[in-house]
């Protein structure tokens, strides 16, 4: 059985991106997907919190305001376990490249920032498949805020950690909550060998770095393009 602490032996490859909202990780993953497909590789994309199994319960739980840090964590773990079995492991077995926008590390960072025991949440996710490459897009809070506020008038409730009542002002709450999240990510860089990408860089500079790493890991022959 695969675990987060040992290399998987599926023929496929698992590449994941992490970072706080506004770090630009989703754009980077999309560009990576385009490039991999252009190389003729079969790619499967999956994103955080997208399984139909707990969608209704999560939505209702948020609306009613009955979520606790622990049930919030467990709902995401259930979502993840469902996607792992249905979406992530089958393409890995079929030898495809799986791209995941956020992975278990998102839970480790956010749940610990919400006050859940960080050892507990790691044990809960012990059944995860260890990624072949894990990119962490590190960005200062102010840069992320600036990117998020473009074309938006307000921050989302949970994104800003409003459930923790750190501040009644969403922007201030976002700052406080996401700084905690950043700290949690920073502790994981060594723990899980995350590849840190400076997310203040331009989109194309970041993408070049990502493609170089992926090319090496996947043994792709042709030169990476911008």
């Amino acid at each position, binding site marked *: 059985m695969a675990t987060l602490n040992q290399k998987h032996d599926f023929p496929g490859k698992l590449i994941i991106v992490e970072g706080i909202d506004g770090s630009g990780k989703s754009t980077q993953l999309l560009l990576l997907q385009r490039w991999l497909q252009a190389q003729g590789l079969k790619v499967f994309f999956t994103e955080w919190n997208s399984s139909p199994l707990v969608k*209704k319960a999560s939505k209702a739980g948020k609306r009613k305001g009955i*979520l606790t840090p622990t*049930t919030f964590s*467990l709902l995401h773990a259930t979502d993840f*376990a469902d996607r792992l079995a249905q979406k992530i492991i089958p393409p890995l077995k079929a030898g495809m490249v799986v791209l995941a926008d956020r992975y278990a590390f998102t839970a480790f960072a956010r749940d610990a920032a919400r006050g859940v025991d960080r050892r507990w949440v790691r*044990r809960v996710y012990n*059944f995860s498949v260890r990624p072949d490459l894990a990119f962490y897009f590190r960005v200062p809070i102010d840069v992320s805020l600036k990117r998020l506020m473009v074309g938006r008038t307000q921050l989302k409730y949970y994104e800003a950690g409003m459930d923790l009542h750190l501040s009644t002002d969403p922007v201030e709450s976002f700052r406080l909550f996401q700084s905690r999240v950043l700290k949690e990510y920073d502790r994981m860089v060594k723990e899980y060998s995350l590849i840190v990408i400076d997310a203040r860089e331009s989109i194309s500079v970041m993408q070049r770095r990502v493609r170089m790493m992926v090319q090496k890991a996947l043994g792709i022959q042709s030169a990476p393009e911008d």
Partner: protein
Amino acid sequence: MSSLQLAEVPKRFYGLGLPYVDLSELKGKIIVIEGTDGVGRSTQIAMLRDWLEVQGFATMETGWTRSELIGQTIDEAKEGHSLNRWTFNLLYATDFADRLENQIIPALRAGYIVLADRYIYTAFARAHLRSVDPQWVRELFGFALVPDIVFYLKIDVRMLIQRVLEAGGMDYWESGQDLHPQLDMYESFRRYQAQLLKVYDQLAIEYQFHVLNARHSVQRTQRVLQDAITRYLFEKPGAPRSRRRPKSTA
């Protein structure tokens, strides 16, 4: 009003608990009734509530998969047979966490006696039969509070089958159909429930259940429950503390 009062015993978590919950605030008690289907858990709980309330104790009842957050999702997922070994357990854990934090802990803070119809052992037993890593499922439920007393209503497989059929029949999961789809439903049910009873016997030792013979009359079982609760959970004001670990009363 009786002269009984709750003995003060500090609460603890089974494993890595909830760091944001102050255990010293939890003054109430948790009484768990475990057992397979058809052993009369809800009858006994209803009678215990009556008895405790007459004694002057506020009670609250909580039951497996009855969570507001996720109860319906579990029912629907079971209906669709779409669960894997992880989601099965994670949904149970979500159900339990929701009831723990939104019902049980607030009730304990207010000094209630919580009567739990099944507890985390139900998940352990079912996970065991589905070859889920026992350590993982125990760590998953590490946030559970250790109950003050656990009763296990034990029944033999023959009686169990008859009672379940009498009550309306077998369902897919209770028959372990996911484990042996090649068997007919009755054969699968019989085999699954027999294995389940064996696992419960192991859990009874691991978690020091008070084991009761569920073939006894309802009244007799109730009397044993009340005696044990009086002995282990209550003390007379001024009387010296006797805090022995619960042992089997079977």
